[in-house]
């Protein structure tokens, strides 16, 4: 398995706030990674730098060995980087099927793809994520977990090599969270998509979901390792709960 993504000493400032401070890490193909860290630790900024919504002030981002730091988001999507949003953002006035078909049309396999083919791919993916029977429903009318699954389906339709999941399970019941996590694992196994997800608080999910965990704090990578090592590490406990008096 080769290296898929490499982030090299990336920094990003917003005015006086340092959101990312020389962050470096790399992701191998086929990995399931969770990036954790409290609110404001720089996870979302890191995601936005990787998918091109934000340009870093310093540092480079490499995808499959290619420097993509200057590429716009749509060009990165064509190379195979897809993402979901923390608060799901399906296109509410379009049907579930249309939402997913747009993913197929404009994803990395979308060039020259016909509308009929995109719709049929979308129908298959609807089954994979378990949204059968919802194809014609307008996306805005779905429940919150269903919207999350739709975002996942839309991202899969884009045929990414790297899937960035922003808070896959925040605010979900344990049952819904498990359903989403299982679907993500299934997607990784069936499609060979590398998954990097950020998780703010739900440590139970991190343990269940990730093979490697990266902990962020105040714009830096605090440490990384297996879920077992990381979640018990005193530094991580300190970051989340503060120092014992």
């Amino acid at each position, binding site marked *: 398995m080769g290296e898929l993504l490499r982030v090299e000493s990336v920094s990003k400032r917003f005015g006086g706030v340092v959101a990312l401070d020389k962050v470096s890490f790399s992701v191998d193909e086929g990995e399931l990674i969770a990036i954790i860290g409290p609110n404001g630790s720089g996870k979302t900024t890191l995601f936005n730098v990787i*998918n091109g*919504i934000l340009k870093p002030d310093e540092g480079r981002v490499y995808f499959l060995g290619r420097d993509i730091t200057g590429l*716009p*988001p*749509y060009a990165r*999507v*064509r190379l195979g980087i*897809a*993402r979901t*949003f923390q608060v799901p*953002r*399906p*296109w*509410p*006035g*379009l*049907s579930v099927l*249309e939402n997913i*078909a*747009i*993913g197929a*049309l*404009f*994803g*990395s396999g*979308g060039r*020259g*793809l*016909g*509308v*009929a083919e995109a719709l049929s791919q979308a129908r298959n993916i609807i089954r994979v994520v378990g949204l059968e029977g919802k194809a*014609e429903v*307008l996306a805005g009318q779905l429940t919150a977990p269903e919207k999350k699954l739709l975002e996942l389906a*839309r991202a899969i339709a*884009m045929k990414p090599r790297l899937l960035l999941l922003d808070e896959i399970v925040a605010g979900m019941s344990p049952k819904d969270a498990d359903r989403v996590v299982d679907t993500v694992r299934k997607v990784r196994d069936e499609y060979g998509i590398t998954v990097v997800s950020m998780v703010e608080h739900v440590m139970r999910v991190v343990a269940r979901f990730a093979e490697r965990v990266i902990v962020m704090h105040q714009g830096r990578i605090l440490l990384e390792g297996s879920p077992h090592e990381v979640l018990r590490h005193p530094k991580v406990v300190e970051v989340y709960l503060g120092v014992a008096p």
Partner: protein
Amino acid sequence: MTVIDWFALRTSLKRAAPALALYTILLILYFAVPGKSQLIAQILFYAVLGQAFNIFMGMTGYVDFGYVAFLAAGAYGFSIAILLLSGVGGGWMFIPLGLLIAAIIAASLAGLVGAIALRLRGAYFAIATIGVNEGLRYLVEGLNILGGSIGLYIVKDMKELVGREGYQLAATTLADMLMFLLAGVAVLTTSLILSTRMGFALQAIREDEDAARALGINVTKYKIAAFMISGVLGGALGALNWALKGGVVEPAQVFLILYTVEAIVIVMLGGAGTLLGPIFGALIYIGLNFTSNVYIAPVLESAGIKATGLHLIILAPILLAVIIAAPQGLVGAIRSRAPSRLREIVV
């Protein structure tokens, strides 16, 4: 796209059929109802205005308050062609050449304005486009170019080109037939866009532009493309309506912001982003206008009440009610309540 997407083509023809049928009915009424052909032509003008405006506003959600500038660009473009041919000859060539120059000028204006203003969102875009329209108007009047504030009178030149009788035909039936043709082109263009990847991209932009951008859609490219297509159709409409049919292109008329407002009203009434919406919008708008001017206003005036602009007073509460009760417009409301099989048809 290298290969033709037959599925998209078939879908777009299916979608266009109801709107094309309505225009055919209007065409039959144009010839069949004596003395009402100009009322039909007026409905047609506003339907095409809505149709052309809708390609951009309905599909992207951006409101171009300076839209009438495209109509003006087309009207001036058509006149320029006539002035170029005048003295040289060329006969009926003035119509295709005029429409071509109208389209080129409107497309250039759209490309130029779009490349700058489409970087702005929402109200900022709307305000910037008003500035474009007013700016162009004062440019023409202030620099005294293209006839300045007096405008261009091209009746004489058209008569020289195709003779008195030729002109009589060109400015009446032929102009109206070309307008019907333009309506068909506008419908087919809209349905084709809606059924291909461009339509999917534009709808995604309308629903959530940031999500569209993050998910691989080159939003700037599609917005500018839609803006240019909408602008070209508007340009052709302005050329046919003022230059060919009217024979006069005056800044006070062709840059009149009222037309933009009317386009918005028609699209909102009928349903933004739908194919049938602009037709119903125009029918309601002109129907109301006609009823109040021809039937209600004379009654009030005989009672000593001056009733100019009465239709606007009637229209305002109707528009408010539609926006509150059915924000997607009449066709949009029917469509969202209809079962999905019917939804395919009512677009």
